[in-house]
């Protein structure tokens, strides 16, 4: 039934898909196809023109397009086929990928292994329960970033930003430098989830006020946004009457979190984790469906692209190993979230893991001078102390393969202990 066959098919040519493709080709896999919806590879990095990328991987500070270009050039050197302008419609559990593009029309491609690398999307207005009218002028921060940086349009002149995630902060500065007036950045939590560096260099540098424990309680405008009302919230995040501040603005940007984009994964029967909204994977980044792998922000939302690349190299190597050999029945150790820990990836580790495994998770709150502990029953396997564990920064614990191979129980638990 398939129109063509490949060994490894990768969905998405952002940093995750590119790294996975490079790793698989370096392992000697000849038949690799990367499908990309946009007209160029690079993913979200294309619109992230600010610097700060690559410090871990390249030990220098690059802008997003520069970081992407390094992987694109490497992929070209390795003669990896990337088909842009191609939208994947579905993935079946037996790894038949259906896609369309203007050049090649409708195709079915049978792959020996599929790597899901579709990234994430922003939480939209509909998921935020914001009141008010449905007028124009309300954008997710990333959409505005695309308009300004890739398409050369300014979405508005007087701006309020809801949410203080890094994209919102970065856009506060971008809009200001492009001549807009950013009136306020409004955060419902008592702290910002953005980097300190972005609070200082994107808000404070331009005297943009950050309203913590505040949210938008009214949106006004018929055709176009005319203004928003911002109110303080109590410790249960309910608006406090009498604390309203009105802002006259034509633009509201939403920076309220990212969600892995898993529609295709669900169609393939891939099991998702409620904690990460991404696939449940083992230490080789294989999902619950054999031969389907996931890496990057489609698996769990990262803070740093460097970590996306490193994870995706591992996924690429694992997919290469999968197409080379028929794996035997594996026996797994499950990984559980303990106190203070959310969304540990991978959720399963093969008992005979052939490499070290990075356990990645998000702290559930801010813990200062605390210790992350991995235990198997009563036995502590490893401890890592840090000055701070915070939800804004993914924590990583590296388990040695010898530690894994000598484990006796069926599960391990990751938790944070206050000291």
């Amino acid at each position, binding site marked *: 039934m398939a129109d063509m066959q490949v060994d490894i098919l990768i969905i998405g040519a952002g940093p995750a898909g590119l790294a996975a493709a490079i790793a698989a080709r370096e392992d000697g896999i000849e038949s690799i196809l990367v499908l990309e919806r946009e007209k160029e590879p690079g993913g979200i990095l294309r619109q992230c023109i600010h610097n700060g990328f690559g410090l871990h991987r390249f030990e220098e500070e690059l802008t997003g397009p520069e970081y992407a*270009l390094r992987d694109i050039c490497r992929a070209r050197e390795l003669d990896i086929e990337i088909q842009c302008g191609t939208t994947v419609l579905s993935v079946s559990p037996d790894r038949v990928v259906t896609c369309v593009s203007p050049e090649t029309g409708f195709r079915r491609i049978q792959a020996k292994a599929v790597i899901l690398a579709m990234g994430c999307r922003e939480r939209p207005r509909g998921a935020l329960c914001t009141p008010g009218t449905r007028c124009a002028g309300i954008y997710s921060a990333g959409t505005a970033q695309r308009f300004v940086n890739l398409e050369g349009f300014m979405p508005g002149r007087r701006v309020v930003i809801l949410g203080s995630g890094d994209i919102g902060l970065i856009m506060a500065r971008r809009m200001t430098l492009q001549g807009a007036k950013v009136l306020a950045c409004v955060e419902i939590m008592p702290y910002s989830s953005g*980097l300190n560096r972005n609070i200082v260099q994107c808000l404070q540098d331009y005297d943009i006020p950050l309203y913590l424990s505040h949210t938008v309680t009214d949106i006004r405008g018929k055709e176009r946004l005319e203004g928003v009302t911002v109110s303080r919230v109590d410790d249960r995040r309910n608006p406090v009457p009498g604390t309203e501040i009105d802002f006259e603005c034509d633009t509201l940007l939403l920076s309220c979190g990212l969600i892995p984009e898993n529609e295709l994964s669900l169609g393939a029967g891939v099991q998702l984790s409620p904690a990460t909204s991404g696939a449940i994977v083992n230490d080789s980044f294989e999902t619950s469906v054999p031969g389907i792998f996931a890496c990057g922000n489609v698996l769990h939302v990262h803070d740093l692209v460097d970590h996306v690349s490193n994870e995706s190299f591992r996924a690429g190597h694992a997919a290469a190993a999968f197409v080379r050999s028929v794996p035997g029945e594996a026996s797994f150790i499950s990984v559980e979230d303990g106190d203070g820990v959310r969304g540990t990836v991978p959720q399963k580790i093969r008992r005979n893991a052939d490499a070290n495994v990075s356990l990645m998770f998000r702290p559930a709150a801010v813990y200062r001078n605390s210790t992350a502990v991995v235990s198997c029953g009563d036995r502590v396997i490893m401890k890592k102390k840090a000055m701070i564990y915070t939800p804004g920064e993914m924590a990583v614990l590296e388990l040695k393969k010898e530690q894994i191979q000598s484990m006796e129980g069926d599960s391990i638990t990751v938790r944070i202990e206050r000291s």
Partner: protein
Amino acid sequence: MEQVITCINCPVGCRMTVHLSDAGEFLSVTGNTCPRGARYARQECTMPERMITAVIPVEGSACPLSVKTATPVPKKMIRDVMAALSSVRVSLPVSAGDVILHDVLGTGSDIIATRNLP
């Protein structure tokens, strides 16, 4: 003279108090927990610098050109550098790393392209 700043080097975000002479010279810093914090405090309170990134419209291209300063420039010059960029004309093709403007406003920093535009 005292100035309170937040360290940006890591998520700990130490609140540091920087002591400056009346002439604005760095005297000492407290509240930092590592040498990187002290270095940042001295720099930020005496000669703050920023990398600037921006996009420039390009005739004949639907997509603007992303650019950056090759090195950080004085923070107080951000607006001036942006203004200087607004009058730059770019002709295609451009490759990442190409110098778009030499020594912008005498800062010693070039403006360079961060992407290819064919």
